[in-house]
């Protein structure tokens, strides 16, 4: 069946089976392979994308449920020229090794800091504890997210003006 939604600011129409997950639709239907699938049962968080502003496990959501939604994937968080503040902080703090969990970490952290730019370390750890990473031991990821807060705080102030 055909479905339509917006992904990274672009309206797309794609043909899916009713049973197709949003993750598979993004990866194989739309070739947005930055979103990764690590467990297919909603535990690892590698497939996290942002649907209408909320961090969602795209392996647990059917593609048809995304009809009419606005979706952001890791590919939509920066352009060719520069890394986003969150991505740059990940690089600076060596918050990624194999890179497989990274898109889910980035989208999760982006959704968190967009809502809560002042999140403290405990809150960051708590939210990220829904995403598994097997390489880094998480400490540098938390350091990176805490550093990136400044950019979101500045954005937040700008929005309120």
């Amino acid at each position, binding site marked *: 069946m055909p479905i339509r939604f917006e992904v990274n600011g672009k309206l797309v129409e794609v043909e899916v*089976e009713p*049973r*197709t997950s949003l993750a598979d639709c993004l*990866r*194989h239907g739309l*070739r*947005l*392979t*930055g*979103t*990764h*699938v*690590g*467990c*297919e*049962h909603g*535990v*690892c968080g*590698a497939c996290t994308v942002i649907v209408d502003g909320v961090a969602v496990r795209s392996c647990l959501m059917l593609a048809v449920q995304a009809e009419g939604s606005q979706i952001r*994937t*890791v*590919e939509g*968080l*920066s352009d060719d020229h520069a*890394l986003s503040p969150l*991505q740059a902080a*990940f*690089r*600076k703090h*060596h918050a*990624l*090794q*194999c*890179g*497989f*969990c*990274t*898109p889910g970490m*980035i989208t999760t952290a982006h959704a968190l800091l967009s809502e809560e730019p002042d999140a403290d*370390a405990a809150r*960051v*750890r*708590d939210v*990220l*504890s*829904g*995403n*598994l*990473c*097997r*390489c*880094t*031991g*998480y*400490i*540098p*990821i*938390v350091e990176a997210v805490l550093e990136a807060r400044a950019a979101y705080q500045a954005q937040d102030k700008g929005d309120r003006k």
Partner: protein
Amino acid sequence: MRATNSFVGSPIERVEDLRFLRGRGQYVDDLTREGLLHAAILRSAVAHGRIRSIDVSAARALRGVHAVITAAELGPKPPVIPVRLQPLPILEPFHQPVIAADRVRYVGEPVAIVVAESPALAEDALDLIGLEIDPLPVVADRHVSAKNEVLLFEDHGSNLAIEYRAERGNADAAFHAADFVRRESFGVQRHTAVMMEPRGVMAEWDPAQGKLIVSGASKVPFFNRRILAKQMGLAEDAIELVENDVGGGFGVRGEFYPEDFLIPFAAKFTGRPVKWIEDRREHLIASNHAREAECEIEIACRKDGTILGLRGQAHIDIGAYTRTNGMVGARNVAQFLSGPYRVPNIQVDVALHLTNKTPVGTYRGPGRFETDFFRERLFDLAAADLGIDRVEFRRRNLVAKTEMPYALATITPYEAKDELDNGDYQAALDQCLREFNWVEKATLDGKLIDGRYHGMALGCFIEGGAAGPSESARLALETDGTVSVFVGSSAVGQGLETVFTQIAADALEMPMESIRGVYHGSTGYVRDGFGSYHSRSVVMGGSAIVLAAESLRKAIREAAATALDCAARDIEILDGRAASAGGASIALADLAAKGLAVEEVFSNHKHTYAYGAHAAHVAVDPKTGHVALIDYVAVEDVGRVINPMTLRGQVIGSLVQGLGGVFLEHLVYDENGQLLSGSLADYLMPTASDFPNIRAFVSGLHPSPINPLGAKGAGEGGLIPAGGVIANAVAAALASLGVQPCRLPLSPPRVWEMIEAARKARP
């Protein structure tokens, strides 16, 4: 190397990150091809049985299914997978066939493979296969295995695959003469790497060229190509193994598994490209398990704590077959029981038992995690009995700088000798005590504060690396004046491209931007390669790059001398040009036009030993059994630091993985050989909130004497001492109750049970 170019030793941000952070990595499941088909694998749901019948007619009839392959399609005898590390003829009866023909020996063993238009269709077709298996009694653990009432391989007559012995000096004589002997039993639970990206294979067969391309390779592609060529009846150079981005290896990914034959076979069989991506449930029953080990060991000492000997028997449950590297953990348990300590007399026997469980392989720090847990626990028990301070006990027995190189126990039947290369073990211990603030913190030992018992512990370790025999590097000067680096090493997510760029840039005396790229892990790049395992990449691949850089500079000088009509020794290479003493110069880009490339091989048969000390502060809640990690200090000297940032990442990442093994991770089987922890909701791994208090201190104060970089393998050390240190800290915390943890994991229910048992045992 010129001092002005010092990328080596600097915390350079990784070159890989730019693609990973933007979602532009290319992992094997990100690949697609015109006409791509998808495979799914039917696996035995029975741990032990005889296949009575397989009816694939309904599956074959399903629209969109292109093939259903069983053992029948593979000829009279399906190929088997050989042992890669430490092979012996006596292990051959236990090699795993790529598909089960008439017998299944573990839950997860491949029985049939479906190739269809989509992964979902392939899975639909699996449900239509009628598989009937007559169950046999299950050998569920090593105790049942040892009875030999039910045999996995009747022709062999026993479930004991092999026994190893580690030997040095005369242990029996040492124990006979000792003032003090202490014996204890220990156990480590079955767990494994569980990297975030499941395994995957994509194969393309070109009938016109007679060529096979297999993507998804990793770790040891050249070795795997040799196996596959033999199995497929193809010449090695008719096969290309391609390494893509890899979502974690940790020893488990990249060994030769049944799917590494089945998917290429399916591609040739169907004449279409075929891809298979392991799902997580599959991963937990199909990929190598590790770590399941028990032992009874004893220590002999003088009254003053001087160790005279270690002696004992260990038992390893290796599962249903001997996989490519399934022997390594067992032999390491035996050989590295002595760790960084001076133990003149050793006799450790290890028995490898076959059971109806998923076969084992190596997982980061194979055997070392287990044996360090055994040793460090035994040391604390012995020190307490002798009334000697734990730190002092270790200090007295660490191998001294002046004793290097120091011989380890020899392993029979391989007659494998090894020695510790160099280092100042005492200095690492002292640094750890300082950073941890041991003297002050030790006063909290055993104290009950706000309802929790606090405890400290400390342990020392070694980490082996640099497995031989050699590694290749090819450097090519490109027509834009940059240099491409091709290596036989493999990238499994550890940041190889960055550290090799640093090494190459320094050795070539060029800026990092002049290194066009590091190309690794595929069989097309160099003549032969040995890959990435045993923490060997930096030492072996890095040293090969250093040799090749020297050759390339020489070749550039010679080419420039010809072009500029001067002597090669008068040529200086600077800023993308080769200049003569007389002032004439030629651009490297122009020299490249004629084709300038060199390939060098670095050979080495010795091992490096990084070393260090860890200390932990825990708080145990006696009401719940929960152990909180209050502070953890990891100190390691790795000979030479290439990139302190990525090295710290390796230490902390490895340690947290190890803490998973200490507290959480457990592949639990029932008596029918069924895996009970078969999802990530059941197999618990550390999360961001579990272990936030870790401090790592890495240094390169004592370069290894056995390679031009002075580097040592450094990817595994973080987890090696974790079990012993944490268990000793828990014992110290609960000393007033007399709790002595001797088995992992230290999950809350198990710690709580130990506390309750200890309380009941006391009057």
